[in-house]
């Protein structure tokens, strides 16, 4: 058999190889999409609507659609996530209710995205009568993002030292006043990082918007929250599986994939840089 040192060398070699493997998976993904997608990206691709049965033209309506839906998602998930986090970190006592809430957050995070799609269809499209629309899709994505925004906001609140709260309380103000003036202002940048990450995931989701508002093709831009919309992820799905001439539109699909990845990763990057900057500031 191998000597002990040899064993260790082989073992560690295997670990290094695994790490390298994970690294190369990402490299291959990014290389393939960037190298084949960059060719179709130009001003026209980004600013015009698809034309000629979606074999030519750009993806402008899909960019606008994804942006609009993400705004609705943020309007729902950011404040609600913040409020829930304030309850959990500032008001809640350790007990049954808190335990139940935390368990629900973790379970909600594990609910499959397509199940959120079903829920959105039943609740927003049908029961509340919003129809297949930006509003329905945005609210569905918002509910899906809620666990992320709650967790992120709570992490941010946890980093604020108790002396900030006590200092304010000692002056005789109410608890809410202390939180509002002496805790939240310092916690908000931290809340933003996790929130942006959550929103970037929502912007790239397809399954929840399949039946709640995304449209195959629309020649015009959405004009109200009750319009249907084109979305980047759904457009990529259409261009790579549903289109009548898939081979011909392959370059356009690559271009769409590149724009989608660039959008999602730049949101990620903003969040990562913000976090890096915050940590540096905290160290000082």
């Amino acid at each position, binding site marked *: 058999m191998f000597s002990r040192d040899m064993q260790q060398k082989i073992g*560690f070699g295997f670990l290094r190889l695994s790490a390298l493997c*994970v690294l190369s998976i990402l490299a291959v993904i990014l290389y393939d999409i960037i190298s084949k997608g960059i060719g179709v990206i130009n001003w026209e691709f980004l600013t015009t609507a698809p034309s000629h049965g979606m074999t030519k033209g750009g993806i402008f309506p899909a960019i606008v659609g994804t942006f609009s839906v993400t705004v609705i998602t943020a309007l729902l998930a950011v404040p609600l996530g913040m409020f829930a986090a304030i*309850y959990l970190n500032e008001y809640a006592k350790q007990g049954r209710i808190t335990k139940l809430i935390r368990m629900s957050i973790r*379970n909600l995070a594990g609910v499959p995205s397509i199940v959120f799609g079903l829920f959105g269809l039943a*609740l927003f499209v*049908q029961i509340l009568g919003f129809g297949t629309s930006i509003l329905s899709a945005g609210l569905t994505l918002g509910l899906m993002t809620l666990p992320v925004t709650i967790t992120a906001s709570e992490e941010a609140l946890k980093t604020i030292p108790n002396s900030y709260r006590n200092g304010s309380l000692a002056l005789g103000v109410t608890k809410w006043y202390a939180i509002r003036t002496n805790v939240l202002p310092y916690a908000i940048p931290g809340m933003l990082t996790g929130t942006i990450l959550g929103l970037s*995931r929502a912007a790239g989701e397809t399954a929840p918007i399949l*039946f709640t508002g995304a449209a195959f093709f629309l020649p015009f831009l959405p004009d109200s929250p009750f319009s249907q919309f084109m979305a980047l992820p759904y457009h990529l799905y259409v261009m*790579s599986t549903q289109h009548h001439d898939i081979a011909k539109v392959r370059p356009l699909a690559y271009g769409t994939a590149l724009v*989608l990845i660039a959008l999602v990763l730049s949101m990620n990057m903003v969040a990562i840089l913000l976090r890096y900057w915050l940590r540096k500031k905290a160290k000082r």
Partner: protein
Amino acid sequence: MVEKFFLLNGLLVVFILVGIFYLLLNESLPTFKEVSIVEFFTSTTWNPTGYHKVSYGIVSLIFSTIMVTVGSLIFAVPLGIACAAYLSEIAPAKAREILKPTIEILAGIPSVVIGFLGIVLIGPMIAKIFNLPNGLNAINGSVLLGIMALPTIISISEDAINAVPDDYKKASLALGATEWQTLVKVTIPAALSGIIAAVMLGMGRAIGETMAVLMATGNAPAFPKSIFSAVRTLTATIGIELGEVAYNTTHYYSLFAVGLVLFVMTFLINIVSDWVLNKYEEAE
């Protein structure tokens, strides 16, 4: 008053989780006016639009889901744990600085983009290696789901390995064990419950993933004959069919029933992994 407002926000997550379950159940039940519940859970034929005889059996769909998921774990689990061990035990600071963002970016790539790569990159590769007419089959789905489960498995396993007290390792090293022996015989067994939770959460993610399998597994609703068969998972079935059915028909309700099965499966997985993690935190 203020506290009650925040409490209500905290409880919202519980309401949403219960609401999802209730609506899925409510929309599923009409299915069983026309379809026997025994047929639903025991028939291998899923053919709601059959010309002569319609059939609603989900056995093939469940089997396909499990097959693709198990396939993904076969490579994602060893790779993920090895990568986590590398990160927490032997990686130099520089390698960590590259690998950590890599994993975050990998987690951020939208599932529709991964599915697209299944069509344009992995599919042709599989077709070539195994000499098949096309590469849209169960293996392709497994590879994609594995890639998507990796970030979850790596980051939670790493936390678990990091949490093993230094004393354990020092004691082992002091007895003359090599670092490799310490890692395999002491550290990883000590972190096992956390690693199991990581694997289960990765599995939950793989079972619930829609777009990647919808695009890359070929979508034949028959009982899969081999790992090279085209398969259709629970999620893909909803994704494909719900867009095409008329609202409030038996077919429509049956897709909610499929969603309910999916919800219950992932819910149970989450509860068990939650329980494992809790036990492990208490033991610390």
